């Protein structure tokens, strides 16, 4: 065996000494850990006992140009970012934070005629139109009444909900007497905002026959309980007595769509589904019998589509085959 030279020995000893020094320093530094330092940091960040939000003061702040004449501000605008959103909406913050939330602006307005009648405006900045549509559609109320504002919009007995470009709006009223004011405010907000066109093109690929247009929703993650399935539009079809949920998702490439169709199919099988053939004339489709329901999964070009949790196979395949043809036409 070759004997080491003096230089090599010295370098080796130096490296070992250096490592020993580093170890000793780490050990010493840990022994000096001061937990109070971290507590103090937390206290400054808001771990104090009482959180002070901005306190509204009547009539403060400028009157926004979009405000109808018969409303007056009850206080200044409040803003919330991703760190403070839950201070305003508590557990519902998750819905927005998981969908790209940027900022929330809120402000209350009272009726000039009856100051006890008031409403609150929420403007959620979501970053892009798809994300705004996602939070809009996923909270849609069952008794929603469509509203013609030129954007996706609906109203309920005491509220207005709509989306315009990357923003999602809520107008929530404390009184049923403010319906007119809510409508005016919503119209003004849409007119005052930038014009967005060409939104939600995927939603237009749902075949229109028997489609409940107001049911179109966008789900951003964990769709149908499958973690890999994201950015999926769903829509309801009335097929006689049966309700059919159809789904559609544009992927990055045809390969991704095909892969996702396959992995989602495997997920269904792993959870008790059985393969039950394919739609005639649609080679890229598979029918699954999931206990007493049916699921059709297909891919066409960059699109993954199908029907979900349908009571009978005929309705499931009927809607799915129409989607297949529509995607075929769109691809030509």
């Amino acid at each position: 065996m070759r004997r080491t030279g003096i230089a090599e020995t010295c370098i080796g000893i130096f490296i070992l000494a250096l490592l020993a020094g580093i170890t000793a320093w780490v050990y010493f530094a840990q022994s000096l850990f001061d937990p109070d330092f971290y507590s103090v940091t937390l206290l400054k960040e808001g771990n104090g006992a009482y959180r002070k939000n901005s306190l509204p003061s009547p009539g403060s702040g400028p009157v926004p140009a979009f405000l109808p004449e018969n409303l007056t501000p009850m206080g200044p605008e409040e803003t919330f970012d991703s760190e403070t959103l839950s201070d305003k909406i508590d557990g519902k913050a998750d819905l927005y934070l998981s969908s790209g939330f940027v900022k929330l602006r809120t402000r209350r307005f009272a009726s000039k005629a009856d100051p006890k009648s008031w409403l609150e405006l929420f403007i959620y900045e979501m970053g892009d139109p798809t994300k705004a549509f996602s939070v809009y559609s996923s909270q849609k109320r069952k008794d929603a009444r469509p509203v013609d504002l030129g954007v996706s919009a609906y109203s309920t007995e005491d509220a207005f909900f709509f989306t315009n470009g990357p923003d999602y709006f809520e107008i929530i009223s404390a009184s049923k007497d403010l319906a007119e004011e809510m409508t005016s405010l919503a119209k003004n907000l849409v007119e005052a905002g930038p014009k967005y066109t060409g939104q939600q093109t995927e939603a237009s690929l749902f075949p229109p026959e028997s489609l409940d247009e107001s049911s179109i929703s966008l789900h951003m993650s964990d769709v149908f309980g499958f973690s890999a399935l994201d950015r999926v539009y769903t829509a309801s079809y009335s097929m006689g007595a049966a309700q059919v949920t159809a789904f559609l998702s544009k992927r990055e490439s045809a390969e991704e769509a095909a892969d996702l169709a396959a992995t989602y199919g495997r997920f269904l099988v792993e959870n008790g589904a059985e393969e039950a053939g394919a739609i005639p004339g649609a080679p890229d489709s598979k029918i699954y019998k999931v206990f007493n329901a049916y699921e059709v999964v297909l891919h066409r070009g960059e699109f993954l589509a199908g029907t979900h949790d349908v009571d009978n196979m005929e309705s499931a395949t009927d809607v799915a085959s129409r989607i297949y043809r529509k995607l075929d036409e769109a691809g030509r």
Partner: protein
Amino acid sequence: MSKRFKDHPPQPEMNRRDFIIRSAKAGITLGTAAAIGYFLYDPVGPGAPVEKSSVALPDFSVPEAGKKIAIAAGDDRIKTVNAALKALGGIECFVKKGDRVLIKVNGSFATPPSLCATTNPELLAEVTRLCFRAGAAAVAVTDNPINNPESCFALSGIGDAAQSSGADLIVPRESLFANITVPGSNFIRNWPVLFGAFHGVTKLLGIAPVKDHRRSGATMSMKNWYGFIGGRRNIFHQDIHTFIKDLALMIRPTLVILDGTFAMISNGPTGGSVSDLKQTNTMIVSTDQVAADAAGAALLGKTPADLPYIAKAEHAGAGTADFEALSPFRVSTG
């Protein structure tokens, strides 16, 4: 060929013995380093200091009353809460002459009463009056809301209801908070709690609406205690079920009143429209907060098993999830 490209001087070849010795040394070095690392590994890390709490919350339950639950059906909150309390023997069984009562409401949001996101003001006023009628020396109402407290109490109607019925309204302020540690708790360790509101209090009632909650599945009696917590409490949403269990360990109430006249079945906990509500016509009053929430789950179309915090709280000894085992008093106000 230039000189610098000459071969290195011949090295003696390594024999098997040398190879084994060197391999063994390398193995011992690596093994020793790994063993030291494993020995020194601290899986918990150096968290914030856990000081011994200098204050603790008392037990407000009435042992002689035992574990009871009453479920009253009807659409009038005043009638149903009175009927449920009567079924339990009357509020006099729980609030005695001279008691100082604290009522913890859900005043989390500065929203109108019509949304049912907060404790109904008429129900609060009625319960306050009942406490005074039973001989209470004082009644106070409090919450540490998500939104600005003054706005919440004013716009939810809770402030007016408290004052019109003779209760004091405790608006949280820095000086009312003290750090406490709850034995058996995972998270309430040296954490600020609205301790000052309990000063002189002898009985504690909780009044909460039944609501869907995106993170915990539901917010009812046990989660209502969240409003006693100060600080940056939204971090507890990361393990909300365990935290609600902690809350149930922290608070041992005299009674909980769970208002399911309307249940917020979607878009909770804020709601946003009366469209999120379902008229469920139920008022639950219980000495067992776990049983009350287990009974309330059905109003949201859920079972107690759908809400993991119920099982956690039961397992921790805060009450029973099997509310039927308490032989509920079922009454109807017609």
